[in-house]
């Protein structure tokens, strides 16, 4: 584990806040998908505080980069990132999954600013991203389309319909990434319905494929920057993450895909998050 450099300190600090919020709001809601949300916290922080060209004061700004959450169940990390980016008040996060909240169990685009489309049924978001990317390509617009998918989600046939389409249409303005944590609800993806060789699959569908440690902020930044350079193909970034990172008891344990932590679990989780950040050089 290497210490963080000063220029990304601010982003790392935000990722810590987002992680702590994820734990607290899922605990408060008594349900929700914590493992994927924590594992994706670094990527979402980089997206909303470095990579995306966006304006929280003007969520419908025509030139914004679009972001589509295909794996809608990781709404908690999405909401935390949106709130810290000031799309809505951070205080609203505690309403997650409550009656009459804008923070639905799965994202609702009609209610919440910053959300492009409602998701929660797996395998649908990537195709939406393809449509936005093709539309931008035809209109010679320069914004990009980003899309998050789960590795378990990639077992859906619809993902591969979208993959073939994007490759064929040379949607170089599309940057998708996979949360490659090897975990789905019932266990390890390779035991349930093998995805490997996953990079080869995406390459075979005519995608530019990159891979990186999805729990290393500098590496995430660099990989998105590299993806932006691609001129002919859509890009798939395989982000290797750990479920629940950096909470050790969640690592590799599929139960934490979608179980809310109890009081004791929360204590340990927060402690381990604090320890992790102080180890990498954040006080």
């Amino acid at each position: 584990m290497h210490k963080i450099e000063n220029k990304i300190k601010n982003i790392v600090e935000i990722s810590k806040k987002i992680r702590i919020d994820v734990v607290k709001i899922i605990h408060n809601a008594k349900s929700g998908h914590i493992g994927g949300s924590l594992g994706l916290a670094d990527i979402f922080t980089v997206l909303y505080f470095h990579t995306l060209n966006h304006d929280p004061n003007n969520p419908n700004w025509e030139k914004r980069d679009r972001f589509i959450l295909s794996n809608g169940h990781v709404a908690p990390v999405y909401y935390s990132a949106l709130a810290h980016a000031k799309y809505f008040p951070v205080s609203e996060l505690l309403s997650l999954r409550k009656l009459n909240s804008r923070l639905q169990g799965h994202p609702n685009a009609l209610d919440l600013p910053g959300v492009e489309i409602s998701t929660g049924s797996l395998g649908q978001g990537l195709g939406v991203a393809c449509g936005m990317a093709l539309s931008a390509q035809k209109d010679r617009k320069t914004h990009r389309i980003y899309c998050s998918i789960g590795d378990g989600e990639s077992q859906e046939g619809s993902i591969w319909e979208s993959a073939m389409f994007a490759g064929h249409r040379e949607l170089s303005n599309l940057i998708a990434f996979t949360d490659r944590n090897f975990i789905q609800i019932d266990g390890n993806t390779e035991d349930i319905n093998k995805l490997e060789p996953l990079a080869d699959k995406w390459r075979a569908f005519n995608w530019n494929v990159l891979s990186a440690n999805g729990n290393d902020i500098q590496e995430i930044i660099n990989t998105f920057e590299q993806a932006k350079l691609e001129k002919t193909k859509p890009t798939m970034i395989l982000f290797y993450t750990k479920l629940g990172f950096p909470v050790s008891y969640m690592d590799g344990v599929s139960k934490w895909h979608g179980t809310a932590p109890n009081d004791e679990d929360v204590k340990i989780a927060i402690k381990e998050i604090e320890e992790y950040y102080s180890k990498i050089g954040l006080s």
Partner: protein
Amino acid sequence: MKYLKDNIFNNPTELATRSGFGEALVELGKINDKVVVLTADVTGSVKANMFAEKYPNRFFNVGIAEQNMIAVATGFSLEDKIPFVSTFGAFITGRVWDQIRVLIAYSQSNVKLVATHTGVTVGEDGATHQILEDIALMRVLPNMTVVVPADFNETKKAIFEAVNFDGPIYIRLGRQKSPVIISEDSLFEIGKAQKLKDGNDVTIIACGVLVYEALKASKELKEMGISASVLNMHTIKPLDIEAILKSAKSTGAIVTAEEHQIAGGLGSAVSEVLSQQFPVPIEMVGIKDEFGISGTSEQLLTYYGLRSKNIVESVKKVVKRKR
């Protein structure tokens, strides 16, 4: 025939219908080696884990790939197996409707479809997971049978019936615990409604978790001097037309109650029969052309007006409309 357990209003045991499915599967596994179970990365949620442990060679987790799961199950059925396919209601109906239409309904394949998370009682996951259109989607398919058990015990009976039943069947279950009200040993027949309460002024026809609300309503109505008959319409298709007509003739007014869109659901099914064969005033309790939202299942039953008090209100309205 006495269908109900005693003392159902006095702290009844609560169990989820999906748990009844899990228990029934284990028993079936023992007595029928043609039974195979398929699910799509939700083994514990659909309560197939006990079957999976006992009969690993007859359990297939296909991963998150529902469309393929339906096709694979059809293949099993062609090889004389009896596949029980199960996942959340949204993903075993809407997501795979064309596969079901062509491979299972049109082809009359002997596939048993079991939806475990349906209606607003799915709760916090919200609209995408709270399927409120599944009865309509399945009911409209020729050759399809549609069953909505009222509780845990009835679910077990329905699953046992489904094995011996030759052909496609859709069984709608819930995630949330609900009162166990049907006795273990009463008769369950696909397509035969159960009269749970006798009454003269109105008939309440309900299915699923709304059966309990209907029974509570009939009790409340009795105190107001209104005598309500209650029918448990556990089979939406084929609909027990005879029971509906008989009851409509004797009470002259109908209220339907379901945890589903009124459009296309039980309310529609009942009114299709009555409007053509014996028109009487009818009121419908159910979802009124809306999607669900996050909340606890208890909150949402109230929010969407699916409580006994809503049934009582509808009864008062419909009784006034009687000539």
